[in-house]
């Protein structure tokens, strides 16, 4: 029964009615949201910056290599880097990395609380633990991850510039012309839609793994791994569905 996918899907859906119930004390939830905003936002900023620079850099260099010798004008590289990062790489890559960093952390934190009977202790006090432990994480993720994705998109474009212009692949003017060419505002909307959906998937799936943990430290490790694996797979599936829906 516990290995049944449908069993967990049903449990996951039903668990949401517990999460979205009226908070016992808004101020406590607010404090927790602020803590999570800091942990997720500031805590992940450096990794997001590092991966974003390389996303942009690799995209620029790779496309220059593939287009070399063709009649496609070099400024197209800037255009490709911009759209690739905005539409796909910034939201997907950032959220996949965050699933590994933040998602596993959330699963371990809540799973550890389950093991140490902290969740039971809160339940006895009358706290709605699903709401108190999960809702602030979801709200914080939905607020901060789109910002991280925006940062990632900007830094990726800068990464493309840094990797190609100083090394003489093309000129600064060509790259910037490409960044400004054929801009479609709805692509930015698509980026935000993706980042919000991915943030929700990553947070709720990871918290689910921790919250429903049974067993000891080996199971905690497994739950943490499952949080990353399942979040990543679901993010990629959602990525495909959003792409089909918003570009169709």
């Amino acid at each position, binding site marked *: 029964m516990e290995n049944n996918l449908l069993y967990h899907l049903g449990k996951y859906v039903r668990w949401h009615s517990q999460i979205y119930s009226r908070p016992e004390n808004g101020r406590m939830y607010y404090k927790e949201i602020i803590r999570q905003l800091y942990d997720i936002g500031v805590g992940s900023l450096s990794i997001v910056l590092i991966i974003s620079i390389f996303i942009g850099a690799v995209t620029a260099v790779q496309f220059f290599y593939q287009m070399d010798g063709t009649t496609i004008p070099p400024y197209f590289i800037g255009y490709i880097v911009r759209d690739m990062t905005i539409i796909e790489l910034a939201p997907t890559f950032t959220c996949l990395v965050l699933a590994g960093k933040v998602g596993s952390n959330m699963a371990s934190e809540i799973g550890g609380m389950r093991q140490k009977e902290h969740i039971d202790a809160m339940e006895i006090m*009358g706290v709605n633990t699903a709401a108190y432990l999960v809702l602030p994480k979801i709200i914080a993720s939905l607020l901060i991850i789109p910002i991280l994705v925006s940062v990632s998109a900007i830094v990726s474009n800068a990464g493309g510039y840094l990797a190609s212009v100083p090394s003489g692949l093309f000129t600064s003017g060509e790259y910037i012309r490409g960044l400004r060419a054929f801009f479609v505002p709805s692509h930015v909307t698509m980026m935000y839609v993706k980042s919000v959906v991915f943030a929700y998937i990553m947070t709720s799936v990871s918290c689910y793994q921790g919250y429903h943990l049974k067993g000891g430290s080996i199971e905690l490790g497994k739950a943490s791994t499952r949080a990353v694996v399942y979040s990543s797979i679901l993010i990629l599936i959602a990525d495909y569905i959003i792409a089909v829906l918003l570009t169709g």
Partner: protein
Amino acid sequence: MIRIENIKKSFGDVEVLKGIDFEFEPGKTNLIIGRSGAGKTVLLKILVGLLKPTSGNVFYDEVNTDKFSKKDIRKIRMEMGMLFQGNALFDSMTIEENIRFPLDMFTKNTMKEKTKIVNKCLERVSLKGINKKFPSEISGGMQKRVGIARSIVLKPKYLFCDEPNSGLDPKTAITIDELISDITDEYNITTVINTHDMNSVMEIGENICLLQKGKLVWKGNKDEVIDSENENLTDFIFASPFLQKLKNRALGYKAKMGDQNKI
């Protein structure tokens, strides 16, 4: 008053509780005793609502918990305090934050008022001045007392203690027992303790039920323990080889005295 009626609980094919009826008397120290695996913790978790019985009923002041709405459950839980076997103190919070947590969550008191209540509770468990320490910085006995302080901070009507003496030396265990017993009287709480410690039984057992393999096999109070000839109870009391030896010696002495009296 808490009353349970024909409580059964199974995990898969294993029946852990086999139909238990008992009344936990209000304002008294009620003990659930028995060997490891007898079903004590499961019964305690059913009483506080962390587990659902497979069948049977739990009544709080004669109201069946099955009929409780979500609001009622929350309300009754705010009247409960629980001391966990592993203390369940939030390790990333200071002692003060741990004890203040229920106040932060459920009251609109100012920080000054909350700090005053926390200090009062800490004083009550003889732990003045450790507010800023973390749980990992204090001893196991102190952690138990912090756990008690946290469980009484909202002035509960019911106090549940899961093996409050586990992992403590005999002297500290007695201190914890006395503290729980005093708090029970002071706050007029209905206390339910789950233990296998005979010292606790003889010190604070005002209303005791003995579980064996998921069945209730004896009930009484600490004064009735000594005179009881219930085999299950004597088996439980004299489980250790040392006590068994003492018992045999006492029986031998009694028999010898009986023979001499005949002569």
